[in-house]
């Protein structure tokens, strides 16, 4: 019974979400076709749609997509590795948690994107600066959740495992990791999202290639329909990536009960 209620509620909220999207599209159409909003500010949704089809058919997005995705993948792997390793070692003593946790939380709360000019100076206009910035920004949610995950394992479980003779490796593999993983997975998803945001964002500010870079180029060429088409494309890519990461997170959780 409760399950059915949940399902119909879910369906209801989905309908509202779809209705909202449809309303936005309708308003957009009316604004351009009826209310005479300047085409340079807001292109007609139909011409955007035609441009989008053209972009997808021609495959001209491929080099930029490849650059952005490579930057994202490298940055995320670096942040994931360093964040989980550093987080694990920080979580080992109360003292190091007390020292480092507020430090990481403090840095996490400042907009690191402000340091983009420095990153450009150090790493140049190419992908290296995007990777370095993305790694830095996504390191903090990952390290914080790893510290929280490993730092809050139920003491009773650790004591029980110790009383049964668990070795250090067994303790790590069968007690600490499964206990900490749900929290760490949340941190990884957050880290992935901020890496994506900061990489595309920094591409729009100072870069030589990438999807963000391409969008800014189109804007500078006043090619509004094509720029909107690219924005829609990037939104779709981001939605797919975030959906995939959320799916992996849920699967990782389920496997561990």
């Amino acid at each position, binding site marked *: 019974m409760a399950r059915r209620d949940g399902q119909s509620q879910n369906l209801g909220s989905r309908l509202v979400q779809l209705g909202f999207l449809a309303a936005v599209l309708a308003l957009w159409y009316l604004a351009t076709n009826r209310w005479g909003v300047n085409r340079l500010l807001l292109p007609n949704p139909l011409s955007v749609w035609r441009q989008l089809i053209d972009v997808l058919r021609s495959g001209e997005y491929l080099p930029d997509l490849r650059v952005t995705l490579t930057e994202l993948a490298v940055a995320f792997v670096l942040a994931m590795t360093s964040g989980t390793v550093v987080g694990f070692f920080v979580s080992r003593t109360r003292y190091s948690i007390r020292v480092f946790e507020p430090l990481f939380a403090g840095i996490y709360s400042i907009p690191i994107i402000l340091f983009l000019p420095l990153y450009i100076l150090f790493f140049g206009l190419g992908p290296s600066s995007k990777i370095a910035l993305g790694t830095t920004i996504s390191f903090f949610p990952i390290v914080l959740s790893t510290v929280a995950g490993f730092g809050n394992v139920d003491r009773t479980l650790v*004591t029980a495992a110790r009383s049964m003779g668990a070795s250090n490796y067994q303790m790590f593999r069968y007690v600490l990791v499964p206990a900490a993983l749900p929290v760490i997975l949340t941190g990884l998803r957050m880290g992935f999202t901020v890496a994506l945001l900061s990489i595309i964002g920094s591409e729009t500010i100072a870069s030589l290639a990438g999807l963000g870079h391409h969008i800014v180029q189109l804007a500078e060429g006043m090619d509004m329909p094509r720029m909107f088409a690219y924005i829609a494309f990037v939104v779709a890519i981001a939605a797919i990536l975030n959906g995939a990461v959320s799916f992996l997170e849920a699967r990782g959780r389920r496997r561990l009960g």
Partner: protein
Amino acid sequence: MTAGDLAVRVKNVSHQFGEAGEAQHVRALLDTSLDIKRGELLCLIGPSGCGKSTLLNVIGGLMAPTGGAVEVAGKPVRGPLPRDIAFVFQENALFPWNTVVENIRLGMLFQGVPKAEHEPRARKSLEAVGLAEFANHYPGQLSGGMRQRAALARALSLETGILLMDEPFGALDEQTRMILGEDLSVLLARTEKTIIFVTHSLGEAVFLADRVAVFSARPGTVKKIIRVDEPHPRKPEFVTSEKFAALRNELYALLHDEIRKTVSETAARSF
């Protein structure tokens, strides 16, 4: 009594948390000595904070006492002894991400039991506690009483000579507790394990124990040991017998003063 009959010897054990003068300084145990015979069930009972659980952790090698020593089978305890001693904790000591049978197998893996023995031993211990049908349930899907049965099955599968139980039924309701107590008595009559059982419940102590060690208020030490001469398995009728009532009353009288002392000390601190 010869040394061979002795499973655990507690010699002048004292324990304090923190250093003298510190705010968190607590003297939990003071010069406690106890001899526990092989195959005996000893209950530790006493007011809250009297150091019963601390003593259990010291015996199990999970905690080093600040004074005195513990011997298991004639050897001094310096750390956990998974081959000799298994624990059952108050609650939530099952790994929630593993099923009941996975929890039992993991215990055997930690203890170093050969893989081939995992399956038969797990099945045997689950049958012993009446949980065979729930082998593939997760702890979160079981009631509190069933979770404690599963924890007991995990401890039994380790086939240790000594079982340390720290208020294993403490978080359960009175009725579940009664049934688990009866089942435990039946189970233990068959196994010949040495058991040290910490409890708050007078009835539970009299019903299960061969001897009951009554602790004084903090810093705890053994005030008196009461013998319960009644063969295992104990029948439910034992609870309504005069002998049971007399022993329970004796325990109550012994404990009452100690609990008063604890309460007035706690009250004095908070005012």
